[in-house]
């Protein structure tokens, strides 16, 4: 496959950026999107150019490090798939692919396609935890949990914090991420004592970071690689309302 890439290049946090066009030839359809970028970078390095910086770690779709807006869609148009698990066979030979970083004021660009997602860490620090003695794992049946609640909590807990929801949201809202973390804990018995203070602290931190408000467009859940449902946001809203 031969491709034309339009990539956002930005040398540092305060440097101005621009879209730069590259030709990448002899790409295998079996390559992942990141492997295709590896090929580009090897050629850039050999020609003495600065390689395109992008975040990645496990390349198995479970760590949440990778993520870029591909042709206007966070993680690309393949549903429920992280960028690392997106394969080149989903693109046509000769295609032009536009690649941009997550765009949000609370996610400043570090370099090229790498953004600083520390804002998510601070939302978690504000209340995304349970204050219980962490000893050895308790017996599975010592605290009964309804099957439905366990399933919903697990669905929410699959959030890998990649930030695609923020990138896709027309308001730059972090509601799906925050709601997933709140719902995960608020459906389980261990999360009950801090349920309302947690919701308030995390939502207030989300606002303080400068994320936008939710207008229920559903763009977030459509691009979420883990398919976190919009219901989690209703759960967050309900808890936040009770906390006030």
């Amino acid at each position, binding site marked *: 496959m031969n491709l034309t890439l339009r990539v956002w290049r930005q040398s540092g946090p305060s440097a101005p950026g621009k879209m730069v066009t590259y030709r990448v030839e002899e790409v295998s359809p079996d390559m992942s999107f990141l492997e295709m970028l590896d090929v580009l970078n090897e050629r850039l390095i050999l020609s003495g150019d600065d390689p395109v910086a992008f*975040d990645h770690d496990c390349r198995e779709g479970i760590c949440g490090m990778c993520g870029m807006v591909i042709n*206007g*869609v966070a993680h690309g148009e393949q549903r429920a798939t992280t960028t690392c698990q997106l394969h080149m066979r989903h693109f046509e030979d000769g295609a032009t692919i536009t690649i941009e970083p997550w765009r949000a004021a609370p996610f*400043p660009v570090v*370099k090229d396609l790498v953004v600083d997602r520390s804002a998510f860490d601070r939302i978690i620090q504000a209340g995304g935890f349970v204050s219980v003695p962490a000893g050895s794992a308790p017996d599975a049946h010592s605290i009964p949990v309804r099957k439905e609640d366990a399933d919903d909590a697990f669905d929410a807990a699959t959030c890998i914090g990649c930030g695609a929801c923020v990138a896709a949201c027309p308001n730059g809202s972090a509601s799906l991420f925050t709601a997933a973390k709140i719902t995960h804990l608020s459906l389980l018995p261990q999360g009950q004592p801090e349920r309302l203070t947690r919701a308030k602290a995390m*939502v207030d931190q989300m606002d*303080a970071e400068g*994320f936008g408000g939710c207008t229920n467009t559903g763009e977030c859940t459509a691009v979420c690689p883990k398919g976190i449902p*919009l219901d989690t946001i209703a759960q967050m809203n*309900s808890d936040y309302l009770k906390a006030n």
Partner: protein
Amino acid sequence: MAGYLASEGVTATIERGAATAPVSKPASKKPTPGKRGGFLRSSNGKKVIMAVTGAVMVLFLVLHMLGNLKIFLGRDSFNEYAEALRTLLEPIAPYRTVLTILEVGLVVSVVLHMWAAISLARRARHARPVKYVAKKSQAQGYTTHIMRWGGVTILLFVIWHLLDLTFGVVNPKGYDSAPADRMIAGFDLSRWWVTLFYIVAVAMVGLHLRHGIWSMFQTLGWATRVKALRPLAALVSAVLVIGFLAPPLAVTFGVIK
């Protein structure tokens, strides 16, 4: 950037991960909220204001639609209904007491709904200072994308609508006329463009509500267990659109004279 590597003193041995960002991260701008923001200042609080004021307006629309349909029972029935609205609770309360209270409530709702919407839109703009070169919507339905401009369209329509049928300024019958006369003259076939404008505006209201009614339940946190909310919102919107369009169309096409 030729010579970049040499100037940094990096050898050509590039391993996996070498292309990632430098480890040092920029200093965080806002580590914690400086002060406790009030509920109504929070983005969630503003959404609750939008939901509650929206609910008030939807309830008003239902009553307004039912009142309009009285025109099918004849001019007298419609005029009596209009008079009854003004004389409700008389003689306990003076003329127009209930109606004035309702009007004040509506104006307050409209103002708060707009204030919250503008405030959230400004917040959204600040949250994405750099726009995407390419952006493709992935969510179903386009109504969510026209809520803001749809709202502006509806506001402009409401202003026209009040000038036409409430104050009679742009109505052929003027202010000192029976409500039914104003309606029948206002939507006369010779003023077909008024009917057309009305159809467009009411359709816009319907689209606004299709997202808005569902969104209201989502914002208030009642949407977690009810799966039929989206179809329900669409149904209520459709009923309102049909109910509001029936009288003017009947007038324009001469069914009601």
